[in-house]
């Protein structure tokens, strides 16, 4: 009745609008419905991983590390919890370049650590990870050393420049260039108050060592003639040793600094790699391993370097497996810890029989890559050891004596691909059973139903047992965690998903979103290293089967629920081929299709069965890929041939002008239902959406003119549906895009007068006119039948956003009724933000207040600046996310709720309801209050009833 009154109507519309655009995280849901796996990445180098006291004089040390994702930080060795972390640089990590040459982490004085990444040097507070100071130079840093007595940090740069920084302020105390600025510095050594620097002089092609005054930086003396030869190569030498080490193909040599004294040890560098460790200045410990992975060997030698001579004092036996060594000085002596997959052996420096052997209860899942150990000798002579081991699967474990204390799943920080799997899809759902009953005849259906009911009886005792729990849970007095665990196990709303990752270490790992991101299973593909280009795809093949396709042609079928390997097969494939999946029209069969880059070559499909069905599936579509040379997209019609080959016929090609380079190709997500084909306007007319499942957004850029071009293509016919350009774009910064329904959103950095990150949204409608359904009115819509008059009508609006965006995604729900929200990963804030699509509506009125009709439609005035409002739009709330590169979404069984998983370094998972949780009671709904109020009303009626009756009777009598 009230709805008739217009002002009230406006109020309601405005209210619903506000509520839908400000769906945020409730404080009672935060940290319960979401999870974060905080990761560092795999420790890069043994020299950059160490135990160190967080504050001077404080007992207990933390484990510091620098990871392959360029994250430094501290881990509490007691429980493996993160103490702090910081990302070095912008977080972009080259996949193949060895990072350990340009990035390292070292101890410093007074509870500080110093990090170096290329040209940037930073000193950090070891207790809380705050920067003390930062310095960025013109040249790359080669080595750093902290002089304890001088309270300064010396940095040697690649050009031979040496700078001294005051430790507390970062002030440059002195600087000096050794040589003429052409020498490449490599290593500091500091002993007996003498400072030496080893450099490589390209002029002579030889190494040289110089003595430097640690007070003024002046070069005191240079020692090179007659010591080094042109073939010598420097070997990283521990800074406290009085020698510099280098090698040629046959020998490892030590030059006593300040003299011409050289001692050599025979080693074949072709076959063996080695690493030098030192904890005191008179012993050098050399760890050896074989370069060949097929014949793993390891051993170690201990040399005494005293009085100008190098003598081998101890050799730890040669073994035909991989073990890693760590040298530690516990204060009660030097100890060597040797770790392999089965045991930890502790040696002292006297004998090659271990003083203590700890056999691990379970063999480690992978070989160790490197380890750092702390050995303590108690008063009674008992040896205790604590080892942080980096494994070849990328994870870090801490072993105390013979027990694994904790495991950090650091390999997940190196994920190259991910796929969300619905846990329940694998099971035969009730829906399917009912459907089966429906289609069969009455008798069989009856028998089936009765047998099903009898079968289900076995759940009855458990249900009765759990009844009390669930009642208590409703009343809010029961064990909440138990009730929650029960809800997870039942998962009536389909909120539980497995996220399956392929990591760079050749492992496949699944995490459970309902269990705070705990690892559900992990399995090795037996590949030592995988890069992004090596993984062609990870696909959910239905029925709970995950298929991983590698560029090598290996196809792994893995049970997504248990992680059990089902089958490994292979497929002829070229590393450069592009891989997609095709679904059958009639059954739930799927195929993987590989299209080679070379023009005219045949493609492949896998599995090589049901080729008829595949032919049917391919007959109505085309497959597309980047053209040869990468200058556009080409579309092919494919037809299965014998032995898993595909005959490809090019049907269209879209080639870019020579200067344009492809930035990205975006498709609509596989699950992208559209509930409403039109948008109802305030005057009850309809703008029909442009709906086409085959649209592809191609973004290309021209660096010289700072322009990006956007092409909306039809992937079946190759028709160009829409184009637009943006000028003044910084093409060196990330350009990201996402597409869903009838719209796409992209973001770039603009150098125009409105400087900053821009977000542009474009909606496509069937026609510019209202009530014009365009092609939707036709009974059959074909991609081949697209005259110019039916090309979509695009409407755009641009917004300025305060921070760079690393990844864009759109939420997705089961039916697509819920409003979409755009998800933005903002690395500068460490947040995952959500912006309702209603805010990014290109129909928002510009430069004027909305008319009543527009208000009714839910539009409000356009504001160019899109601010960050955490309360309304931050999904990650107080959490700090690091290194998010990709955001995946999946529907749940609740129409209101979309599952979101963001990954890169950290993994963050949550559920979001862009239009509020309209189909489920929230945590705020108090069932106890409801029951109590019903009881109270009942009591009230009981009391009042006789009173009212009495009064009425009295009234009658008085009349």
């Amino acid at each position: 009745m009230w709805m008739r009154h217009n002002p009230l109507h406006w109020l309601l519309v405005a209210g619903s609008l506000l509520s839908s655009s400000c769906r945020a995280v409730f404080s009672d849901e935060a940290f319960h419905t979401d999870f974060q796996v905080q990761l560092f990445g795999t420790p890069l180098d043994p020299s950059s991983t160490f135990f160190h006291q967080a504050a001077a004089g404080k007992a207990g040390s933390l484990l510091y590390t620098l990871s392959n994702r360029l994250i430094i930080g501290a881990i509490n060795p007691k429980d493996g919890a993160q103490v702090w972390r910081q990302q070095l640089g912008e977080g972009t990590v080259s996949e193949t370049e060895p990072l350990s040459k340009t990035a390292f982490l070292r101890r410093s004085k007074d509870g500080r650590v110093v990090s170096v990444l290329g040209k940037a040097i930073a000193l950090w507070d070891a207790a809380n990870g705050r920067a003390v100071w930062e310095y960025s130079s013109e040249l790359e840093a080669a080595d750093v050393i902290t002089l304890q007595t001088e309270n300064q940090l010396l940095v040697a740069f690649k050009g031979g420049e040496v700078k001294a920084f005051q430790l507390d302020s970062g002030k440059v105390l002195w600087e000096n260039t050794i040589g003429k600025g052409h020498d490449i510095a490599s290593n500091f050594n500091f002993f007996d108050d003498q400072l030496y620097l080893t450099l490589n002089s390209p002029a002579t092609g030889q190494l040289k060592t110089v003595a430097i005054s640690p007070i003024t930086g002046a070069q005191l003396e240079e020692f090179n003639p007659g010591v080094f030869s042109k073939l010598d190569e420097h070997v990283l030498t521990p800074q406290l040793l009085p020698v510099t080490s280098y090698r040629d193909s046959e020998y490892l040599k030590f030059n006593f600094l300040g003299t011409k004294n050289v001692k050599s040890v025979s080693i074949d560098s072709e076959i063996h790699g080695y690493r030098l460790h030192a904890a005191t200045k008179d012993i050098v410990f050399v760890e050896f391993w074989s370069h060949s992975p097929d014949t793993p060997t390891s051993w170690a030698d201990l040399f005494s370097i005293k009085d100008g001579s190098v003598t081998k004092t101890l050799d730890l036996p040669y073994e035909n497996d991989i073990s890693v060594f760590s040298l530690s000085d516990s204060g009660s002596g030097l100890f060597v810890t040797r770790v392999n997959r089965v045991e930890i052996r502790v040696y002292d420096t006297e004998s090659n029989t271990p003083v203590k052997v700890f056999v691990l209860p379970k063999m480690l899942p992978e070989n160790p890559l490197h380890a750092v150990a702390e050995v303590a000798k108690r008063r009674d002579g008992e040896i205790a050891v604590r080892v942080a081991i980096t494994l070849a699967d990328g994870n870090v474990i801490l072993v105390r004596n013979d027990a694994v204390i904790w495991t950090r799943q650091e390999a997940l920080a190196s994920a190259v691909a991910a796929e969300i799997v619905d846990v329940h899809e694998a099971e035969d759902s009730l829906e399917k059973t009912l459907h089966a009953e429906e289609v069969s005849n009455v008798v069989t259906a009856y028998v089936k139903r009765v047998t099903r009911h009898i079968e289900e009886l076995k759940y009855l005792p458990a249900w009765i047992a759990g009844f009390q729990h669930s009642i208590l849970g409703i009343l809010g007095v029961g064990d909440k965690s138990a009730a929650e665990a029960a809800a997870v196990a039942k998962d009536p709303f389909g909120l539980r998903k497995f996220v399956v990752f392929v990591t760079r270490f050749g492992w496949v790992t699944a995490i459970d979103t309902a269990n705070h991101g705990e690892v559900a299973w992990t399995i090795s593909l037996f590949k030592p290293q995988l890069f992004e280009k090596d993984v062609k795809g990870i696909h959910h093949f239905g029925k709970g089967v995950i298929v991983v396709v590698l560029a090598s042609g290996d196809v792994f079928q893995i049970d997504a629920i248990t992680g059990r390997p089902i089958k490994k097969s292979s497929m002829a494939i070229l590393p450069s081929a592009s891989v997609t999946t095709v679904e059958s029209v009639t059954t739930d069969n799927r195929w993987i299709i590989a299209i080679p880059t070379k023009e005219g070559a045949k493609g492949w499909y896998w599995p090589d069965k049901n080729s008829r069905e595949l032919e049917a599936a391919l007959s109505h579509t085309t497959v597309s890929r980047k053209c040869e040379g990468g200058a556009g997209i080409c579309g092919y019609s494919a037809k299965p041939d014998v032995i898993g080959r595909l005959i490809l016929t090019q049907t269209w090609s879209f080639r870019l002008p020579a200067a344009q380079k492809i930035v990205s190709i975006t498709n609509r997500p596989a699950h992208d239902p559209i509930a409403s084909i039109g948008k109802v306007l305030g005057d009850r007319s309809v703008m029909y959406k442009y709906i086409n499942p085959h649209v592809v957004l191609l973004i290309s850029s021209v660096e010289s003119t700072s322009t990006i071009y956007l092409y909306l293509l039809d992937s079946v016919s190759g028709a160009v549906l829409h184009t637009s350009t943006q000028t003044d774009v910084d093409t060196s910064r990330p350009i990201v895009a996402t597409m869903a329904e009838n719209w796409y959103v992209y973001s770039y950095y603009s150098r125009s007068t409105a400087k900053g990150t821009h977000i542009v949204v474009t909606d496509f409608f069937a026609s510019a006119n209202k009530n014009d359904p365009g092609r939707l009115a036709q009974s059959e819509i074909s991609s081949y039948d697209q005259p110019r008059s039916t090309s979509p009508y695009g409407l755009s609006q641009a917004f300025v956003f305060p921070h760079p965006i690393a990844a864009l995604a759109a939420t997705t729900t089961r039916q697509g009724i819920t409003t979409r929200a755009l998800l933005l990963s903002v690395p500068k804030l460490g947040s995952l933000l959500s912006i309702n699509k209603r805010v990014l509506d290109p129909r928002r009125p510009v430069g004027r207040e909305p008319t009543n009709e527009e208000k009714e439609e839910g539009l409000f005035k356009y504001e160019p600046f899109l601010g960050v409002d955490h309360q309304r739009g931050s999904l990650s709330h107080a959490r700090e996310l690091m290194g998010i590169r990709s955001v995946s979404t999946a529907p749940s069984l609740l129409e209101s709720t979309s599952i979101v998983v963001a990954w890169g370094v950290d993994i963050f998972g949550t559920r979001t309801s862009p239009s509020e949780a309209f189909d489920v009671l929230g945590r705020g709904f108090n069932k106890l209050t409801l029951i109590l109020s019903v009881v109270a009303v009942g009591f009230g009626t009981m009391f009042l009833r006789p009173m009212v009756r009495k009064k009425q009777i009295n009234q009658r009598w008085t009349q």
Partner: protein
Amino acid sequence: MTAVTAMMTLLLPLLLLFPGLISAVTVTGGIKPNNQLPSVSLLPPSTTVTLAGDRLEDSRSSHVFANGAFRFQDVKPGTYLLEVHCRTHLFPSFRVDVSPEGLVEVFGTFRGNEWNNKGERRPHPIDISPGKASEFYQVREGFNPMKLLGNPMILIAIVAIGAMTLMPKMVENMDPETRAEFEKQQKSSMLANPQNNPLQSFDMASFLAGSSSGKKPATPAGGSKRK
């Protein structure tokens, strides 16, 4: 070597006197606590300040140090946007112009502002105070008795109940004459409407037939109930 340092100390003021000699300058500043941010140590350690130039290579990033300071050294001449990236607090942005002579000019600016439109001029070692603290969570509206009392429907009900209980007392306190008149009035209204509880003996048939229309205005109690 001390001679060199001595020379440097002599030269340094000279260099400062002739800023033209310096090709690149250092831009510094600090985060200053205010009532939104009682102490700089409350900021997350990952808080960074960026100086964004036209090209990515000219853009710099600096962590906020333990004392709240930040520093960009060797900034080339150009115009830059200085921003604080922090999850827990919102900060204003600044425009920083570095002239080829090495002069640093700082202006207040905001996103979406046209770049040529310079804002208020600020001193160079830039002092930044947070504008507001980020609020992450939405508060659920629980059961609030005061809010319930604020509801107009509840207020009407309370007034009605109050009138019902107070009316007989008021009638008692009336002087006899008025009271007699009032009672008489009441009686007449009761005669006109003998069933004072319309729900108890509500004639559905006559109501639907429209024959009760005459009675309706005389039943104020019934009317209010239907509301």
